[in-house]
């Protein structure tokens, strides 16, 4: 029960955060591509204590049929937390939070997908959070980009995401759960480097205009770092099996 004993001031002591990070440091990230058998594409991502599995099916026949679009693929996305992924058991039915996050993640990935190549089909993204520790929507997006590439879905770019927040009055990168709960602001950002564009942007808490400007820059800079890790993870996967590109699939 460390949280109940912490106060907001404890989050930053001598420039050091609860888990020993500096203000502008990401948590350790581990990415693995092609981890499931049945899915067309998949990835597993660990981001701090977040453990997330992503599967992609498609392009496949849209089901039910009336969701098919004449000019592009229908993108569906489900962000879902396992009952055991959080401190208190979460009932299996999707919560309002999960439903909203499913929507914003879909809208974070759609700009990157060349969905017009596959009219009348459906591309389904399933994100299962096995353990959650703050920043799971960003980690889910990072994993989903990899799983889409692994499924061979043609993409304009990979989407990379991370959050910037504010703890004890200071900007801080990549908040953990306890930092998010005791902190003053959190701003998840998803970013496509090739377009210098955000595809997801949310924020809650309190930011001055200057804090926002600095925070956005910090987020973008670290999305770029994560983008490199994603490319590296894909390279690892595909060099091993014979050098196919990210969007070439299998």
């Amino acid at each position, binding site marked *: 029960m460390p949280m109940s004993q912490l106060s907001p001031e404890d989050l930053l002591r001598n420039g050091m955060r609860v888990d020993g990070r500096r203000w502008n440091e990401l948590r350790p990230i581990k990415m693995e591509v092609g981890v499931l058998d049945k899915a067309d594409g998949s990835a597993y991502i660990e981001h701090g204590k977040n453990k997330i599995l992503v599967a992609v099916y498609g392009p496949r026949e849209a089901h039910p049929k009336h969701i098919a679009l004449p000019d592009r693929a229908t993108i569906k996305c489900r962000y879902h937390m396992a009952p055991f992924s959080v401190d208190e058991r979460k009932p299996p039915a999707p919560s309002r939070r999960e439903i909203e996050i499913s929507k914003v993640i879909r809208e974070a990935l759609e700009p990157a997908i060349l969905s017009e190549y596959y009219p009348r089909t459906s591309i389904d993204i399933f994100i299962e959070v096995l353990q959650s520790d703050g920043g799971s929507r960003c980690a889910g997006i990072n994993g989903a980009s990899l799983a889409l590439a692994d499924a061979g879905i043609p993409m304009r770019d990979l989407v990379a995401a991370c959050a910037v927040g504010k703890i004890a009055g200071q900007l801080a990168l990549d908040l953990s759960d306890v930092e998010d709960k005791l902190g003053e602001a959190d701003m998840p950002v998803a970013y496509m480097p090739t377009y210098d564009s955000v595809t997801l942007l949310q924020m809650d808490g309190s930011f001055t*205009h200057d804090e926002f400007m600095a925070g956005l820059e910090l987020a973008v800079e670290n999305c770029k770092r994560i983008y490199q890790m994603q490319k590296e993870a894909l390279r690892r996967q595909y060099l091993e099996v014979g050098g196919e590109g990210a969007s070439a699939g299998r």
Partner: protein
Amino acid sequence: MASGKRLDGRGLLDHRGFDIRARIIEKANGSAHVSLGKTKVMVGVKVEVGKPFPDVPDQGVLTVNAELVPMAYPLFEPGPPDENSIELARVVDRGIRESKMVDLKKLCIIPNEKAFVVFVDIYVLDHDGNLIDASAAAAAAALLSTMINKFEARDGEVSLLPETIPLPISNIPVTMTFAKIGGQIVLDPSLEEEQVMSSRLTVTVDKDGRLCALQKGGMGHMTIRDVRECVKLAIERAPQLRKSLLEAIGYGKD
């Protein structure tokens, strides 16, 4: 739109303007009806005595719910809330909650036991675009119009007294949504504009000019440059919009 004019004649950054009527549902503690162009939203606020959440035992409870009733638009369907109504409710909720608009600490009656529960129900009646801003304005107006009963707490029992006082308010957030259409940014998109926009950005600004909520929506992306521009515009415009909202409901006059 190349000429800087929109289909309905507005300039790119012109707002349709809110038409607000507050205190129209006598059975609710607070209420407001907002028209934004042809968009119509009603918000009712009910305040009941309930239990505080275990993790914040010394605070009242605020809950925001939105219904896109099928009356409002041919494609809205009856049934449990879908992702659109949930997003709408949660974005409005964040604006209210993060700005600390309602002073929840003052709504605790007996810590751990009894607190006021504030239900904010958004009811979208006619959909002509920009439901978020219309709903946020209606929710703010309804909360500003809300009266709650005085109470006596004795031996763990609460009795409500007939006398009422205003809901304790400590901030007034203002919400503005921008849409990216073609290469342009427009404020307060109409339904027609939403149907062709590539993305939207909603910005909520509190009374001190701080951001308290952001939400990007839509299937497209938005450049960092555009994001910066929207946020800057929102912070500049917020005071004027807040002023017109307060004037419309006569807040602070009575």
